[in-house]
């Protein structure tokens, strides 16, 4: 019988953390941003109506676009390696929305793709969907970053903190973006 190896990973909580928040005066969209130990994370609300319009424009049927707009909170997300010389890696499967009811994992691309396969969504919209979402996992050298949508299976209007995780080599780091609030469906009035 082989021995059972025990791997203990000690997470380092980021120590140099700065968070701020802003509101776009034209759209009312709120943005939260945190910088922690050489990385930066920013979440901006995306209104359900914007989600509908975006995915209708990518070739999704109205019922699928409705699903995306109302089944989850959607945020435009930017995550960057600003100053970690050895590079970082991340997997969104490790990130959690921290709510009063408990920890909630993000709804990842693979979860949605199962839904699209079951619904028979064509490959064109599915490819567009893949590249519109924030990449599930990636490695960033210094200066690398992406912008894309992240999905949180929470009711519209929910509030939560986001615990985000990244790795430097074998060292796990985490920090928290506090006080994030999902947009609601009534936030925009038609002109």
């Amino acid at each position, binding site marked *: 019988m082989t021995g059972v190896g025990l791997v203990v990973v000690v997470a380092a909580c980021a120590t140099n953390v700065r968070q701020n928040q802003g509101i776009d005066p034209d759209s009312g969209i709120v943005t939260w941003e945190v910088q922690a130990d050489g990385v930066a994370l920013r979440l901006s609300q995306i209104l359900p109506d914007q989600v509908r319009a975006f995915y209708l424009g990518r070739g999704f049927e109205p019922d699928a676009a409705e699903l995306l707009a109302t089944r989850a909170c959607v945020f435009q997300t930017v995550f960057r390696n600003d100053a970690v010389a050895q590079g970082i890696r991340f997997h969104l499967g490790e990130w959690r929305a921290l709510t009063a009811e408990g920890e909630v994992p993000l709804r990842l691309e693979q979860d949605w793709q199962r839904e699209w396969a079951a619904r028979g969504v064509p490959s064109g919209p599915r*490819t567009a969907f893949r590249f519109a979402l924030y990449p599930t996992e990636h490695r960033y050298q210094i*200066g690398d970053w*992406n912008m894309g949508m992240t999905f949180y299976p929470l009711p519209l209007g929910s509030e939560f903190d986001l615990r985000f995780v990244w790795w430097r080599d074998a060292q796990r780091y985490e920090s928290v973006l506090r006080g994030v609030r999902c947009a609601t469906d009534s936030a925009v009035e038609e002109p």
Partner: protein
Amino acid sequence: MIRWRKLMLFAALSAAVPALAAPPQTLTPVAERPLAPDYTLTDLDGRKHRLSELRGKVVLVNFWATWCPPCRRELPSMQRLAEALGREAFVMHAVDSGEDEETILPFVFSTGVELRFPILLDRNSEVLKAWPVVALPTSFVIDPQGRIAYRAVGGREWDDPALVRQIRSLLPAAGQ
């Protein structure tokens, strides 16, 4: 109505971009410089472009789409880079993923900048899938031997002196 919604989305997402301080402008060297996957694609004027026919030149291959805010934001700086290196053995390909002329042309005219480098149509994203692209935009700098020398994940200010220096270092010496 849909058009208005799209415009509002682009405005909202783009407006948020400057909130963060400018990221460092770097290109990441690619280990062992693998050979770049070849492609033949048509540009907006119907001309064909084959990557492997550009041996001897440095090529910036940029994967983008009109709906991607950082992609849109970096295009003017790509034009400035093209102008800065216009007399040298340098070529730029902006490979649009999954869209057609009807979508791309109005956007190109709306930038306020005359984009004079080829915008190539990868309508079914087949080229995109053949390259190591996880997200848009992603760019690669191809050396004169047709190998991937540098990678950039996310948008860049392509005329930043540090980036120009890195790209220029790959250019063949004059007369060679």
